[in-house]
């Protein structure tokens, strides 16, 4: 029996959809640069204690108050450009006099921790709810749609502003300090509670389209169980939208976290945080603009790199650009 005409392909090793996407990604220069920046950020955050030990500073010591000659009587850095010196590379914080570089490095840890934890919860919740609603259809799907609509209608930012103090007064006794882990948990839960909706809605639509495809019917015709269909036939087809959503949601959480801290309901002192740095920077902007520049530029680069990475991932996984 004669063979069809695609034998030229079979000179190459088998290429799965994933390998194809990786190849497409590696051709994308912007994507590779963004990936390098992101990897660099993650490394810096992981190695922050080590780097600070080498640098000889920590993010909580009040160098400006302890060492005379760094801060003026008004609490502003004496040296120009926010007190940049060989000792303090990025200057010192006005007022408390902490080291800016150490704060930035530790602030990156805060941002990444909140963002990755939130995105992990978002991904799991979104996949479970979205795929279930999409596959079951009917009543479950309508209930799902209603819940999503309600959650999307919430004024999220106002709710976050209102919820922070409530949680604090409910779980933390007066006069006590809220433990850091509780702040983190509250932030992660709040982000996850609203963040899963778009992902789940995308997946629901994807799965609804997929379950009408003949390969699902073919699996049913073979007598496969529901479990087999969901886990072996449907899930392998949704990881692409999940990956894209996750890489694009992460920078969103980073900026949201910074915004909340800026408004005073995010992470409290003494845990270093970019949003709070910017908030302090805005207070002293006319006297010490440099203090605003460092966290501002860092957030910009960080978020931009993640967004570009997300775009590159989406392009690489887009079936229209490859295959």
């Amino acid at each position, binding site marked *: *029996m*004669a*063979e*069809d*005409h*695609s034998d030229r*392909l*079979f000179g190459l090793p*088998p*290429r*799965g*959809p994933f390998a194809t996407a990786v190849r497409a990604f590696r*051709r994308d220069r912007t994507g590779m640069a963004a990936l390098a920046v992101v990897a660099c950020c993650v490394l810096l955050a992981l190695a922050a204690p080590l780097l600070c030990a080498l640098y000889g500073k920590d993010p909580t010591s009040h160098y400006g108050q302890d060492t005379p000659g760094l801060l003026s009587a008004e609490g502003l850095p004496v040296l120009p450009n926010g007190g940049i010196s060989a000792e303090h590379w990025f200057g010192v914080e006005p007022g408390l006099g902490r080291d800016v570089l150490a704060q930035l490095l530790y602030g990156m840890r805060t941002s990444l921790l909140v963002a990755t934890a939130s995105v992990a919860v978002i991904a799991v919740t979104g996949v479970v709810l979205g795929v279930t609603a999409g596959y079951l259809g009917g009543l479950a799907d309508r209930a799902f749609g209603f819940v999503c609509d309600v959650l999307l209608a919430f004024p999220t930012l106002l709710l976050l502003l209102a919820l922070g103090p409530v949680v604090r007064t409910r779980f933390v006794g007066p006069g006590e300090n809220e433990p850091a882990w509780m702040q983190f948990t509250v932030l992660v839960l709040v982000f996850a509670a609203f963040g899963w909706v778009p992902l789940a809605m995308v997946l629901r639509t994807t799965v609804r389209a997929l379950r009408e*495809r*003949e*390969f699902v*019917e*073919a*699996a*049913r*015709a*073979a*007598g*496969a*169980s*529901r479990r*087999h269909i969901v886990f*072996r*036939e449907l899930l*392998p*087809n949704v990881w692409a939208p999940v990956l894209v959503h996750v890489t694009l949601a992460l920078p969103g959480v980073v900026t949201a976290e910074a915004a909340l801290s800026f408004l005073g309901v995010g992470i409290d002192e003494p845990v270093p945080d970019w949003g709070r740095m910017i908030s302090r920077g805005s207070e002293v902007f006319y006297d010490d603009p440099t203090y605003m520049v460092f966290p501002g530029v860092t957030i910009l680069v960080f978020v931009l790199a993640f967004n570009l990475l997300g775009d590159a991932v989406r392009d690489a996984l887009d079936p229209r650009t490859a*295959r």
Partner: protein
Amino acid sequence: MSAVLRVRDLTVSFPGRGSAGAVTAVDGVSFDLARGEVLGLVGESGSGKSTVGLAAMGLHDAARTRVSGSVRVGGTEVVGAPESEVRALRGARIAMVFQDALAALSPFHGVGEQLAEAFRIHHAGASRHEARDAAVSMLERVGIPAARARDHPHQFSGGMRQRVMIAMALINAPDVLVADEPTTALDARVQRQVLELLEELRQESGTAVVLVTHDVGVVAGTCDRMLVMRGGRVVEEGPTARLMTAAEHPYTRALIGATPSMDSVPGTRLATVDGVPAAARWDAPARPAGTRTLAEVVDLRVEFPGRRRGVFGRHEPVRAVRGVSLRVAAGETLALVGESGSGKSTTARVLAGLRRPTGGEVRFDGRDISRAAVDARLRREIGREVQLVFQDPYASLNPRRTIEEIVGTPLRVHTALDAGERRERVAGLLRQVGLDPAHLGRYPHEFSGGQRQRVGIARALASRPRLIIADEPVSALDVSVQAQVLNLLMDLREELGLSLLFVSHDLAVVRHLCDRVAVMRAGTIVESGPRDEVFDDPKAPYTRELLAAAM
């Protein structure tokens, strides 16, 4: 007579991205088209036939394609001409009809309005009123009453939409009409009507037609001359009558022999383009007549719930199948024939246990299986005995799973084999359908359409079923590949003694393959009987109509 379309040494290539090499879609094609002539441009997918049509219209994106050679429409050069000149040509001197009329028409405007717009583009001085009149009279010429000019494309049937497309193409009385697979998406009867309309209009107006198609049958019925293309090159060119009967090139002969026609001997092997030459046919083996009933439906009714209306109400249910009775005997091949929407696929799905009937009995081997769609255990047991081969080999294989996993799924469900044993069985199945077992770890997108359909057949065979339901298994495939898959199905049927329920709209294929035929229309069976009886002496008027359209 001077040529209205003169193509010389036309070469179209798409420069590849990065390391990938350029792809030459059309390579040195030359032909002339005289006034009022119909030229058939025949080839399989990837032969470059549509690219020629687009090049004649000057529709290629200059940034992504390199076009060289010469295309002259009534003396005006298209290749390399500035966009403004080509635009004046398009629509006025040369027009195009696409395959998918629904995609080619704007969904937000009435068809009359769209026609008037096309008229005004080339009649700058025309008033709205004149344009509307021109549109309405053109619609009437293609058989659409003036009262429907305000209707939107989705309100028309497929054949009517294609008529609108033709009206739009002809409204400026062009010299050349390029029709790219104009009837491929249509049912046989409608296809015939549209082709007749084209012929009529050609005689009236003298427009020359380039008919781009993969269907040799369509060309045979309509074209004066034909041009056979393969891999971007012209294989053979000549009068249709000569090529159909005495083609010189083996590819042309194979292409013509690969389509089962209404005169070919049923059950014989079909010629394939790269394989058995047409001359090597042998007599069809005698098919045993089945007596024992394997599967049957009695008075089957299937309704789809109507669309939701308000909170509680629903529209009238759609009655897809209304009282159908069928039986498939062991070892027999039964064809279920009908046009789209006749309920044949729904009937097949009920027999496969995938859809629950609203009423009636469904039995397999004497056992009631009507609850299979809701009962997981029964479903599993039926899945072992009855398997499906699907129409679209692209949609029916999961793109994220390897061939081994896809073909192994029924084994995983129905047998206790471990991974190694499964692998061995899958390799054996691949050999059985003519694929290389070395391709186990590959993904569906690495295979061609015909190979994918083989994978689908291997999957259907995996659980060693007794009945295979094939739902239009070859209608999405190229002619030569279609022949290979039909040959494979016939071989397997002999080898394994399978019963086959063959759902199709293609009468020639059905006649070639099947022992008994049941004709469906609007949810009921209008005629059924042994093949020769139905084809030679059709009782129902509808069957006669279908046969007439297929001749």
